[in-house]
């Protein structure tokens, strides 16, 4: 029998995954560049759409000074954090929403015969093509709103914002992974995935505008509150919920770990070992 080089474990395994991930991303990027005109036009369209949505907020502040104590720069800062968190998740990991499709078409089997984690293959196998406008606009609005909030002189807060955006992406990933994993129990789970997709808009505004029951749900059930609003409270002068804000990384990791457990139990049900 052919002698194989021993398969990596521990840190080497992580390095192996990182290496393979770069190869996947390269392939994804090459696939996007196979249709350059399509790529450009769609992303300009996406940019225009997001510009319109930001414009709507700007308009509201032409006749009001604040919404529940948040001024224009603060609301736009939260909105931009949410845009960034969402677009990073969307660009890199959005294909996790199609787990249901993988299961129905039997494509999951193809992933299970490779020596890689199947979820890794789902998310690495697809680089999104039309949400780069949201990423660009999010960065721009965040920079502008951050500057008028005086963030430029506080590198620690800038670093926190960057970390918070990544945590926010993880929150997005956790919610969508949990929603997508219902595919292992129900053949058509589009009601669940589309609900997750649509309620992410709740993460874009200060939670203070919602009634208590929605606020609680966005904090403890579907933690979209941690995608932008709570972590922003360490940066903004409004500064409520500072303890919850500091917990953002913990909540993000815990939520993703929980969602991953749910995915795993679904997967073992699929493979016929669990119920």
């Amino acid at each position: 029998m052919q002698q194989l080089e021993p398969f990596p474990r521990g840190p080497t395994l992580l390095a192996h995954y990182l290496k393979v991930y770069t190869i996947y991303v390269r392939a994804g990027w090459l696939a996007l560049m196979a249709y350059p005109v399509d790529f450009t036009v769609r992303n300009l369209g996406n940019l225009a759409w997001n510009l319109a949505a930001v414009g709507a907020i700007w308009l509201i502040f032409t006749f009001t000074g604040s919404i529940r104590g948040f001024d224009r720069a603060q609301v736009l800062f939260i909105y931009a954090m949410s845009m960034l968190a969402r677009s990073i998740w969307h660009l890199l990991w959005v294909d996790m929403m199609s787990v249901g499709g993988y299961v129905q078409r039997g494509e999951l089997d193809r992933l299970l015969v490779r020596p890689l984690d199947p979820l890794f293959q789902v998310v690495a196998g697809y680089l999104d093509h039309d949400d780069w406008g949201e990423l660009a606009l999010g960065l721009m609005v965040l920079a502008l709103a951050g500057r008028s909030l005086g963030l430029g002189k506080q590198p620690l807060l800038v670093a926190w914002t960057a970390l918070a955006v990544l945590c926010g992406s993880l929150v997005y990933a956790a919610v969508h992974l949990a929603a997508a994993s219902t595919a292992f129990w129900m053949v058509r789970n589009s009601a669940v995935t589309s609900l997750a997709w649509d309620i992410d808009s709740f993460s874009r505004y200060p939670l203070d505008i919602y009634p208590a029951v929605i606020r609680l749900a966005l904090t403890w059930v579907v933690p979209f509150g941690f995608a932008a609003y709570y972590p922003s409270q360490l940066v903004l002068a409004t500064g409520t919920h500072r303890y919850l804000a500091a917990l953002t990384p913990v909540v993000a990791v815990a939520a993703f770990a929980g969602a991953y457990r749910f995915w795993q139990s679904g997967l073992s049900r699929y493979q016929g070992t669990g119920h």
Partner: protein
Amino acid sequence: MPAIIAQEVTKEYRIPQRGHQLGSYLRTLFTPSYHTIRALNAVSFTIEPGETVGYIGLNGAGKSTTVKLLTGILAPTSGRVEVAGVDPHRERVTNARRIGVVFGQRSQLLWDLPVRETFQLLRHVYRVPPQCYQANTRRFFELLGLDAIWDQPVRLLSLGQKMRCELAAAFLHDPSVVYLDEPTIGLDVLAKATIREFLKQISVRTQVTVFLTTHDLRDIEEVCRRVILIHQGSVVYDGSPQKLVQEYGQKARLEVEVVGDVVPTAPPGARLAGRNGNRWVFTFDRQQVRVPELLAALGQTLAIRDLTVTELDLEGVVRRIYGGEAL
């Protein structure tokens, strides 16, 4: 150590039962009821390294379930599966490194990119050493003609070209076992021939074990030295394809339309199998009797208006083995 061991392997699926009326649908949401389908029933076989085994059966006989159990996609309900010394389900990743798989209906090629990009990706996924990668791709260029399409986007390839790529992709990392699930499905005669030739070459040149499921008896005849037949979840034949074909595959079927309402008697070497409208159906063994002889014998008592001769296909063979003469 055998390449594949299946010992008393049984696989059952639990299918949830849902009512179609609202009331019963809601009830089953809370108290789900299942009925069990047994896809495989105490299947046992052992395959040695280097063997090329054909695995055939009707649709729904349990072929794909077997492949899924051997590749580690599914866990057996009971029994033991071992591939190169490991449990393929429990040690999925270890097993996955040593196997190659082609699902005839599902592609693992990168759709929008040139063929070589898929191989670059797989090279890193399986950690194929550079010299090994060089040697193997050179072999694929030679045996499968991949050099001609190496830089073409997959979406522009024909079905046959794609299947050649799939096949090469499955063999890239020198797996010890390769599973081919319907690799020739939908291909034309020429493409099938290329694939069979490749499998023959590879089984001569390397020690790889090949497990092949197919609908096409010719695949088995040309490539496999052993064939396992499965029917309704059980193994019904395990032996050389020559013997299988000698016993059953040479059977052919003659239909004659005659003038008048005479009940014919079967000529020597043939059996009267039944009646299809106004046509009488005979089966016969091509090695024992030839069509002109049959016609001559039949012509003595009957006025033949029209006739057709058909070979028994795989389905016919399986039916004959399992359910007797069902044609």
